């Protein structure tokens, strides 16, 4: 594989950048693989990469219905954080933070990870107490949490509305200074390129149409590009999880919902971190290009449409203008949507299933992007060793029936309001 560096950049400049190697090949599917990963998004590609790197399993295919970077890995708002209260979520995502910090070097691809910090705003004394509790839980798990008072928040986001007569006056906030953002396409491309270089086949435009199961064991799958045999298959398809589960006669604690985001026209630097305004159903950051990147609620009803409706965008921006009045003068550049695998407790599932050799990775809700490395790492371990790692043992499929929920926000099973 061609190494990317300033020298290769200069060298290729002399040939008008026309002689770069393809970042990954376009192979025809083989008849059999040791492991097949369904879903060529961030999680699927990271899983394939860590299968090859950590477990030396390189006879692997990643099957993608669309194209690499076309799903949620290219549709998210790129936020990376580990500000969770429960141990299982906190340890898992803090493990991921360490993978993020080295990702550009490890993948030889600049993912532009930028630890610019996140603030969750609080609007009452009760919420400040709740944040103090969450911050303490985070610190017990070695995660940097800082409880900010009103004046400290004002120093960081002076352009927010700090009047006292607004519906949600700012009392303070909980910050995680090590949180940040990254360039999401680069994450997909970086993992794909490295996985490919170690022998993984990345097969695009290939839809899974069925599964072969014999005596409770998975033996292969049928696709639009022919049948493929494999004794181990990992499902990593986010919003399409329920569609494939139906083909497997499985019913899961997952609903598929649409989440939208939008960006404004680019402006000069005004906001250096991520700010979440939970009371206003709104969060925001500023991209390196200067666009204000914003999002908020789900559209609110089961949906597989990868585009949303206007009332939700209006609702999100109403909250946005309440917090940052200057936004009212910006033009919106574009809006888009992605389909989310909303789990019944807001936490993911990375587990084996009742079918031998079939592994499940889903339930990422709003927060799949930050977990790309940690999910790939633990899912690769689960598949390679045929047992869960201690980092993902809390993300079991049967935790719902057993009552061991990881309901970080205590919102219950109405996935569309969580």
């Amino acid at each position, binding site marked *: 594989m061609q190494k990317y560096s300033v020298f290769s950049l200069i060298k290729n400049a002399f040939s008008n950048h026309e002689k770069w190697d393809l970042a990954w090949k376009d192979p025809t599917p083989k008849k059999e693989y040791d492991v097949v990963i369904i879903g060529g998004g961030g999680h699927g590609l990271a899983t394939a990469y860590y299968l090859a790197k950590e477990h030396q399993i390189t006879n692997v295919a990643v099957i993608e219905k669309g194209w690499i970077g076309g799903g949620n890995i290219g549709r998210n708002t790129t936020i990376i954080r580990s500000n969770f209260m429960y141990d299982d979520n906190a340890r898992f995502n803090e493990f991921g933070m360490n993978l993020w910090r080295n990702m550009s070097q490890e993948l030889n691809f600049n993912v532009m990870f930028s630890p610019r910090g996140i603030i969750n705003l609080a609007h009452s004394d009760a919420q400040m107490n709740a944040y103090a509790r969450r911050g303490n839980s985070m610190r017990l798990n070695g995660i940097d949490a800082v409880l900010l008072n009103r004046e400290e928040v004002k120093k960081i986001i002076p352009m927010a509305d700090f009047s006292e007569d607004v519906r949600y006056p700012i009392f303070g906030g909980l910050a995680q200074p090590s949180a940040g953002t990254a360039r999401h396409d680069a994450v997909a491309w970086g993992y794909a390129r490295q996985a490919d270089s170690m022998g993984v086949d990345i097969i695009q435009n290939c839809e899974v149409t069925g599964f072969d199961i014999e005596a409770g064991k998975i033996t292969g799958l049928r696709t639009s590009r022919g049948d493929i045999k494999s004794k181990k298959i990992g499902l990593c398809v986010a919003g399409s999880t329920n569609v494939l589960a139906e083909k497997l006669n499985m*019913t899961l604690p997952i609903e598929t919902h649409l989440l939208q985001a939008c960006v404004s026209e680019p402006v000069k630097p005004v906001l250096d971190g991520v700010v979440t305004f939970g009371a206003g159903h709104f969060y925001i950051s500023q991209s390196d290009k200067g666009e204000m990147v914003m999002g908020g609620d789900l559209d609110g009803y089961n949906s597989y449409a990868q585009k949303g*409706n206007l009332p939700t965008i209006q609702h999100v921006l109403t909250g946005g203008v309440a917090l940052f009045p200057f936004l009212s003068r910006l033009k919106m550049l574009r809006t888009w949507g992605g389909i989310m695998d909303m789990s019944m407790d807001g936490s993911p599932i990375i587990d084996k299933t009742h079918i031998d050799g079939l592994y499940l990775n889903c339930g990422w809700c709003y927060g799949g992007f930050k977990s790309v490395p940690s999910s790939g790492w633990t899912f690769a371990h689960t598949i390679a060793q045929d047992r869960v790692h201690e980092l993902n043992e809390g993300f079991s499929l049967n935790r719902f029936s057993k009552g061991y929920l990881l309901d970080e926000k205590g919102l219950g099973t109405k996935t*569309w309001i969580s």
Partner: protein
Amino acid sequence: MLNIKCPYCGDRSQKEFAYGGDGTITRPKLNQEISDEEWDNFVYLRKSPRGKHIELWHHIAGCRQWFKVERDTTTHEIFRTFKPEE
């Protein structure tokens, strides 16, 4: 924006309604032994199909009645709306 026909009030904008989830789920009968599996099915497990979906909606800023909607989850086409007992 969805245009939803409340069976009691007629066509109204989506903004008047609140969503209530899968309309095919039935609660296990009261005063009977309920197995863990039945409870799991009722509380957590959802088909969430791509295509036709029967769901509950609440005309919360109107007549405040609950009713059912049959809608396509990809195109958002609404095929019919009906009272829960229908």
